[in-house]
């Protein structure tokens, strides 16, 4: 790797080390940046910032399922939609203020996550993925078909009240942005704490070697179920925030492409890595929003990006160290084995 250490490089590495020792410095710095960001922007870009944050929350909720528990979930948008519709229905039918519907969205999405995954957790990766795709479609079709007469069919539900805090109605994009930022910080803190806890370690062990984890006394079924329920419940929260901003919910938010984009955010950014989710969101959501031509080609962009990344850098753009070690290790083993096979033949 013979790179020469210039004094600038040494200086930068010194700063990096100092920052690693005192994470609060750069965390507060980022928070300040996030708070100041929308001020100079116009309404359109403030909405883009809001969408970025929303998809970051969704990406974080999915990274718990995919990155920590290692379960391939390609129907995550379904729980997002369930949360959005729950908020919408409670608000329209029962007049509950939007912010108070958020706990219900979390619970309903979490409950659906539990009901769906409890019977299928024993399935191997690919089969689990197929079931999640199927579930995503089932939810979308149920919404389109106006299930229980509640979901308003293909046009969805409209006229949802905006969230209000003690009389102050959150209407302008910048206020929605700050509301979303609050939940984003909450999500980050929660996930960080989970990652560095007994449960987080159990997730890592299950991902590394499920049989050994089970033999060591870790209830692997329960641990995987927890990941799924937590991830699904949190997607429901994001759905509630969405309903509050757009005041309209339609079955489109549960469509397969939505789940694919979320999956790409997690995988391309770096599975199981928190900064990776932001990188993925910037690439998958913000970029197409900022550049009009890209928006028309967004679907193709997703496909091309996936192919290129899987070949060049499968661990993602900003991977967590553990996942990077896993993926690089597998590649080395595979190439080692094939080299040995070639040598032997």
């Amino acid at each position, binding site marked *: 790797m013979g790179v020469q250490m210039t004094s600038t490089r040494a200086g930068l590495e010194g700063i990096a080390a100092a920052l690693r020792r005192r994470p609060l410095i750069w965390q507060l710095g980022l928070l300040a940046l996030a708070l100041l960001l929308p001020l100079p922007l116009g309404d359109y870009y403030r909405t883009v910032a809001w969408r970025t944050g929303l998809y970051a929350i969704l990406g974080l909720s999915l990274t718990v399922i995919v990155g920590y528990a290692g379960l391939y979930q390609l129907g995550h948008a379904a729980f997002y939609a369930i949360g959005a519709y729950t908020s919408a229905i409670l608000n329209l039918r029962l007049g509950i203020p939007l912010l108070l519907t958020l706990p219900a969205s979390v619970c309903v999405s979490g409950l659906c996550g539990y009901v769906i995954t409890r019977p299928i957790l024993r399935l191997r990766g690919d089969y689990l993925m197929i079931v999640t795709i199927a579930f995503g479609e089932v939810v979308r079709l149920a919404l389109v078909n106006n299930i229980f007469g509640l979901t308003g069919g293909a046009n969805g539900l409209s006229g949802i009240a905006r969230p209000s805090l003690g009389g102050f109605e959150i209407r302008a994009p910048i206020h929605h942005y700050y509301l979303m930022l609050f939940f984003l910080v909450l999500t980050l803190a929660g996930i960080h704490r989970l990652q560095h*806890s*007994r449960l987080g370690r159990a997730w890592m*062990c299950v991902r590394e070697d499920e049989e050994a984890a*089970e033999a060591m006394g870790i209830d692997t079924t329960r641990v995987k179920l927890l990941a799924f329920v937590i991830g699904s419940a949190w997607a429901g929260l994001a759905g509630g925030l969405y309903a509050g901003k757009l005041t309209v919910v339609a079955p489109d938010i549960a469509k397969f492409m939505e789940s694919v984009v979320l999956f790409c955010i997690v995988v391309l950014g770096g599975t199981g890595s928190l900064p990776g989710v932001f990188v993925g969101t910037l690439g998958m959501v913000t970029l197409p929003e900022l550049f009009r031509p890209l928006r028309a080609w967004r679907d193709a962009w997703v496909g091309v990006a996936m192919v290129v990344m899987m070949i060049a850098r499968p661990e993602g753009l900003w991977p967590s160290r553990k996942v990077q*070690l896993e993926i690089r290790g597998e590649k080395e083993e595979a190439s080692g084995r094939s080299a040995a096979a070639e040598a032997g033949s």
Partner: protein
Amino acid sequence: MEALLAARDLTKRFGGLVAVDGVDFDVRAGEIVGLIGPNGAGKTTIFNLITGIYPPSAGTIRFRDEAIAHPPPSWLARLVPERGRGRRGDQVAAARHAGPGHPLRPHQITARGIARTFQTVHLFRNLTALENVMAGVHHRTRAGVWGALLKLRAQRREEAWIVDEAERALARLDLAPFRDELAKNLPYGLQRRLEVARALAAKPALLALDEPAAGLNEQETGELIERVRAIRADGITVFVIEHDMAMVMALCEHIVVVDHGRKIAEGTPAEVQKNADVIAAYLGEEDDEDGAVPDAQNEP
């Protein structure tokens, strides 16, 4: 002495293959017991039955007077979901069911006091030695989602205790210097030792070692014997599968011999060595390839 672990008529069929056929044995508390036999005799299968990886086709295994392995109930009974989740639930369910309920899963058996190592090293390769051993401590602690999210004081104290316990477990097997090394970067002998440390961190009453000396040289094997004796001195019963005859004869007080799924001998090392069936199983009855007839009296 009441047996710590007792297998009665233990049988396991995989389709048409009978891997374990009506095996009985006892492991008494405080003993070092060996399980030996030619390759394919069913030794690891017996271990898998003890640790709950699959249920037996027939027969039972009792551990501390509780049936931990038995054939699964009929498919109809299996449609009823498991009663109770989590450890408290297990005890409730076990108390309610006089007869066999759902087969116990491996983590439930670990919680009851049996820990094992594997024939091929099953460490968490991309985790450090400390993190590997912390996994062993998992079932002895309680902190859940809310404790983690809210960083309750009880959770923080428990986390500190987990790290302490893990470091103690590492130190006990002289692995403390490798605390922050990734498991996959450790030399093979240390990996094997780390697996034992991880199993010990689970505070078992019975430690099941599957070929712990595989791939170790003579010096390392000697160290292993000493370590197993030290583990037994701490009050842990040890059940060992091994192929290294010298090690088995030196270490074990009681030996169970299986061949083709059946128990063919049981007793002290001296008794087993002289047993004609055992010799026949390992060396064959007829003359071997060189045409020489095995001499029972002169074999080690």
